[in-house]
Structure formats: C-alpha cells, structure tokens
C-alpha cells in the first residue's frame, strides 16, 4: 500500500487540465511592481530611489530583519516610484515600480541552459548564496530558506524532504518543472541535503504524476553515476490525497512521524522544501541567479488557453491574463494559487510575487457558495480535518469568542487547508470563522509568552 498521512484529508477532483502545457516564457511587461512583502517575516527595506537604473538581478530591497529576504529587480530599467500600492486584496503595501527598458542582466549571473553538477563543499558559503539569492519557500508559505537551513542549536536534521506533491487541484507548475528541469531540481535537492549534513533526501510525488516519478528516478540514476553526492536521494510515490503537500502531513506520510503542536519540522528531524525552492537553490548556488522569475500555472475550465508560464516577479496579473486572451466572460473569480488554499483576487492590477504559483479562473457554478443550512452533525468536517480537530465545535466556539475553549480544542493547530468547509454538506462557512479565531488565539498565546 502506498504511503500517505494518517488523519483526515479529502479527494477533490484532480482537474490538472494544464498538465500537458510546457513552460513557456511570458514576454516582459512594460512595468513591474515589486512588493517589499514577498515573504513571511519583516518586510524588506527598499535600497533604490526613483530615477535609479537597475539591471535584472540587482538588489532593490534588503532584508528588514532576521526572518526576511532580499528582493532583486526582475527586469532592467528605471525605478519609477517607491510608494504604497494596492496588493491583490486591495491592501496597501510598499512597492517598487520599475519601467522596463531592454533586458540587461547583472554580471556574474549565468543565464545559459548548461547544467552544472559540481556542488561546492563549503556549506556556509552555500547558505550565504541562498540568502543573497533571496530564496524563499515557494510552496506557499514563502518562509526565507536560509533561515530554515540554519536550524536552532541542539536540533538535528535526519532527512530532507522535497515536496513535489502538488496536491491542490489544477496546479501543474511543479509537475512541469519536474519534467522539464528535473536535473536542476535533483541537484538543488543534493545541495540541500549536503547543507543539512549529508542526510538522506526523499522526493515525495503523488501517484497521479507517474511521468514525473519515472523521469526523476532516471535523473537520479544518471546523476548518481557522476558524483556520490547524488546518492542518497530517492523518490517516494505517495497516494493521492489532499492536503498531502502540507508540511506536517508530508512528514507524517514520508517518515511516519507527527510534528507536535506549535513545533517546527526540525523537532522530528525533518526539513521540507518545495520543488520550485530546490530549483531556486540550484539557480542561486550554481548559477548565481537570484529569484527573478517563477513558473505560474494559468488555468480554469472557462479559460480558453491553459498555460504554464515563466513569469518575471512583479508582473501585473492583468498583463498575464491579457497575454492569454483576457479574462473570459463567464469567469467570476480569479484565484492566486490553488482552489483549496489560494487567495481570491479583488484587484487585477496587483502584481505577482515570488510565491505566486498559479492563476485560476472559476465560474459562478464552480465557486459560488451555496446558502448555509443547519449543521446535521454528520461529523464529515471532523473526518476530513487532517489535524484531527473538530471544526463544527471550533466554529461554534468561534462565534461566541470563547478563546479559552478554542485553545483547549487546539484551534491553533489548524492549517487552514479548507477540508472542513469543502466537505460540509450543510455549506457552513466553518473555516471563515475558525481562521479568525485561530488568529486571536495565536495572538493570546504570543502575548502570554512575552509576558513571561
């Protein structure tokens, strides 16, 4: 029997209709908008001023704290402004606006397609290169990678897991990356496993991507003949189940170990990195190329053309849609990310971020919520919850703001995967309320911690 995580989960329709579309580069937009908040942690501090000329890969913002990341210009041109601008949810974020002129890259960046397989031995230098490359977790959380690779003293890493589940419906950019840049991903994985102390590395891929599993297996075999550094990397085929790509769920599936409440994966000896992050690590370490572009799946049944695009960071969403024929008449919702955890876009003038993995368009029939009715206590939400919580109870407690009971019932463990709301036959907006309560409880826990 194939491995998977042990509690809950759902099986939404796969809908990977763009899986056959090779990654193609999107033409440069006339202007890019680089937000300073493209990662979890402190926003970056802009180091350019209006009128400055920048090249591709030039630093435009520096980390604003320990948990923060560099931001590089994704285009060459002139800085137009450094000012607040509305993001995809309409909230103002400090943004660097750059008018595109040509496509001149910084010196030292290797833009060729040559695959480099020589991994340097100096781990400190590698982590520094990852930091300077502005690499963040591209699986969704955008946690700065160099921080994750520097575990707190006393903790020991036992395994690096490459997250290639792509368990959300519709998304195919990781799948295409595995097929088209399999070598780079495996080399990135080898770098990560060397940095963590030559630990074994497992690439977890769901069984609905057999081509990718075969291809990566072949790549590993080929590379391990070149250098022993590529031995110790293996592919693990996992049962298809959402949310397998959740960090804690993937560790459970691969290692059969459960990360405790509020604990980090390193507490069970795991470090999880996404496929796109492994690619970014390869680029940053061996090609000196910071994150200036990423692959974005543009899809939806109502959309005339499915695509996987290589998009420069900061490209306006509207530019991407217009390139592919514009927003269809019957599309009512544009989602940045997948249908289970992605964010609905209210402002199409917003630009992509490093972590933008997909643009999904859904129709009224696909996405409009149905009116909620009484809870019938079927317990489907509790069966679906991958954290073993009781969403029906948390929802009720959240409505009366009972923070103590919410904490006792572990609302803070919620990973906001959406399984509860997805499976509720009465269409009760469980997660809407639970998410809010989780925030309040986490704030209360933090406040208690700082008091002590």
């Amino acid at each position, binding site marked *: 029997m194939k491995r998977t995580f042990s*509690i809950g989960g759902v099986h939404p329709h796969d809908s990977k209709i763009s899986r056959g579309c090779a990654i193609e580069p999107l033409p440069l937009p006339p202007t890019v908008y680089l937000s300073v908040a493209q990662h979890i942690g402190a926003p970056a501090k802009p180091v350019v001023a209006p009128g400055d000329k920048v090249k591709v890969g030039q630093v435009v913002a520096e980390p604003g704290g320990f948990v923060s990341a560099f931001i590089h210009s994704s285009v060459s041109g002139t800085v137009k402004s450094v000012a607040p601008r509305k993001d995809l949810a309409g909230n103002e974020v400090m943004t660097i606006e750059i008018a595109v002129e040509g496509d001149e890259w910084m010196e030292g960046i290797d833009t060729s397609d040559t695959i480099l397989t020589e991994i340097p031995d100096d781990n400190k230098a590698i982590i520094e290169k990852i930091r300077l490359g502005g690499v963040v977790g591209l699986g969704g959380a955008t946690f700065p990678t160099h921080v994750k690779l520097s575990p707190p003293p006393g903790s020991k890493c036992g395994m690096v897991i490459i997250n290639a589940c792509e368990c959300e419906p519709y998304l195919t950019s990781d799948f295409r990356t595995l097929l088209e840049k399999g070598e780079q991903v495996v080399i990135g994985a080898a770098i990560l496993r060397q940095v963590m102390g030559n630990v074994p590395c497992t690439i977890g891929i769901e069984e609905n991507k057999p081509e990718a599993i075969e291809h990566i297996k072949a790549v590993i075999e080929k590379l391990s003949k070149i250098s022993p550094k590529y031995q110790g990397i293996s592919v693990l085929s996992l049962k298809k189940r959402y949310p397998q790509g959740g960090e804690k769920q993937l560790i*459970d599936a691969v290692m059969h170990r459960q990360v405790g409440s509020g604990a980090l994966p390193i507490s069970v000896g795991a470090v999880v990195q996404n496929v796109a992050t492994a690619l970014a690590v390869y680029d940053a370490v061996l090609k000196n190329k910071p994150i200036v572009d990423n692959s974005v799946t543009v899809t939806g049944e109502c959309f005339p053309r499915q695509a996987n695009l290589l998009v420069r960071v900061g490209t306006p969403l509207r530019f991407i849609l217009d390139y592919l024929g514009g927003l269809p008449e019957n599309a009512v919702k544009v989602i940045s990310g997948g249908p289970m955890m992605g964010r609905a876009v209210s402002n199409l003038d917003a630009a992509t971020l490093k972590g933008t993995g997909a643009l999904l368009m859904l129709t009224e029939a696909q996405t409009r919520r149905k009116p909620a009715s009484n*809870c*019938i206590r079927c317990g489907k939400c509790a069966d679906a919850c991958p*954290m073993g919580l009781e969403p029906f109870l948390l929802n009720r407690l959240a409505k009366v703001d009972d923070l103590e009971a919410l904490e006792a019932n572990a609302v803070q463990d919620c990973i906001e995967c959406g399984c509860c709301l997805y499976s509720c036959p009465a269409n009760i907006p469980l997660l809407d309320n639970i998410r809010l309560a989780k925030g309040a409880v986490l704030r209360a826990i933090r406040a208690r911690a700082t008091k002590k």
Partner: protein
Amino acid sequence: MSKLLVSPSPHIHSKDSTRSLMADVLIALAPAVVASVVFYGWRELLLMGVSVATCVLLEYLITRFLMKKPSTVGDLSAVITGVLLALNVPYTLPWWIMVIGAVVAIGVAKMTFGGIGQNVFNPAIVGRVFLLVSYPSQMTTWSAPQGLFGADAITGATPLGAIKEGLLKGSSVQDIMAAGGYDYSSMLFANLGGSAGEVCALALLAGFVYLLCRRVVKPWITLSIFATVALTSLIFWGINPARFTDPLFNLLTGGLILGACFMATDYVTSPMSNWGGVVFGVGIGFLTVMIRYFGSYPEGVSFAILIMNSVVPLLNRWFKQKKFGRA
C-alpha cells in the same frame, strides 16, 4: 466584465449536500420498502404515503408559518422520518394513528428543538414509542405477511412477543420456538409477523451496504450493536438456553437490523467520533438485550436507542478523535 467574486478559501466544494446524503439514505431504504410492499400488500404503501405526507406537510407548515424561515423540506430528512416511521409500525395500523405518530415525530421530536440537526432524539423512534405506549393494542396486533394479493390477514404474535408470552406461561424457549415454527431462514427472508420494516433482513442489509459503499455512514455503530447483542445474549443463552433466546435469534428479530442500520446511525442523534460510536453501539446492544430478557416489553431496540440518544452529548465530549501530533 462583471464584478469579481471574492471569498475566503477554499473556493470549491464537494458534491455532498444535506439533500444528497438524505437521498442516499432513501435509496438505501428502497429495497426494504419494496420488500414490505411485496410481503404486506398495497396497504403498506398507502400507510407509508400517509406517514411521509404528514411529516413533510407538517415540517413545511412549521418552518414557514411558525419559525418564519425558508422551508427545510427540500433536504428530504422529513421524508426519511416518514418512511422509517411507517416501517416501524404494523401494516394494519389505522391511518389516523399513523398521522398522530408522524405529528409527534416531526412536530414534537424534531421541530420543537429547532428543526434538522437540533433534535436530541431520533424523530421516527420518538413517534414509534409514542404510539406504542398510547395505542398498545393497535401497535402490537401483528399479522403474518400475506403477500401482495394474499388472502385475509391472520393475526399472530411476533417471535419476540410469542416468546415473552410463552415464558410467562412457564414454557421453555425451545418449546415456544418449535410450536411457532420459527426458523432463521424465514427470519432472513421475511415470513414472520412484525412491523413492516422488520420483515426482510436481507433487504435492510443490502441497503446498509449501499450506504457504506457511498460512505454516507460509517460501520462502527452498527457493528458494535450487532457484536454486543450477540455477545450478551451468548452469555445468557449459554447459562440457561431454556430461559434465554440464542444470539442469532436476537440478531434477526424485532427490528434490530432496522434499528442498527438506519435508526442508530442517524447523524443528528449519534456521536461524531468513531470511538464514541462504538460506545454508543455497545450501549444500545446491551440495553436491547436486557430489555428483551428482563423488561415487560418484548422488544427493546427503540427504547435502547432513545436512552443512548440522551447520552450522545456526553459521548461527544468524552470520545474525541486523536489530534495530530498530540498525545
């Protein structure tokens, strides 16, 4: 371009709805309904029609005119209550008693608590028990099945009733069984007197398997009821086979299968977690056997389920699913 729709994630929903789940239960009940009509004739179908119509109409009237809310009859739960109630009474029951039962089931047991999802007790069982204590003679006049176009009804006791009566007279279980001509294959294929839903165990089980395959219900409650009934009666039967009936007899008679498969598994009135369900089932099974052996009523499933319904909130509190990464 029309206005963009914005909502928190997730942006898609499974195909399940309250209505689709209830429709699945109705499909699962279909074999039993067909069997009861085949064995008992058209009157059974008419009685069921009266029951369902009363349930649905009453729920509609209460939601629209008393609660002043959109009607909830579309979710089909009232239809299920109606069908289950009709399967729980003898087919000879006068239609007006059927109406009273349905009014109690929906009006008292369901809507006074606030409608679907809010009731503590299973509405169909409350309706049935109300009729049992209010109209005992009509509710316990059982007729042996006569078929769709059969001859006149022959009044006879249910196997459980016959045993209770015989024991009181001092006969042993074996004698009564032999005198009544009860055997297990007729119990499985519906040849004995009883309420409409009790007659064909196979049809009920087929429906339950459908529910399991569609993942509408989980098997734990039902299995634990069966196991507990079998185990408890095995112990007593082992001690004194002349006084106590055997496990197989207890499993196949008196609506145990109907109760375990369709009434105890009602979402609203059963525990949420698997272990809670097991304890719930053990309670029902044990109480059923105790009532059958020592109670004054020959039949105990309905009472057992009602009693266990009342402890469901406690079971929900005590038996929780294991949380991820917590001891």
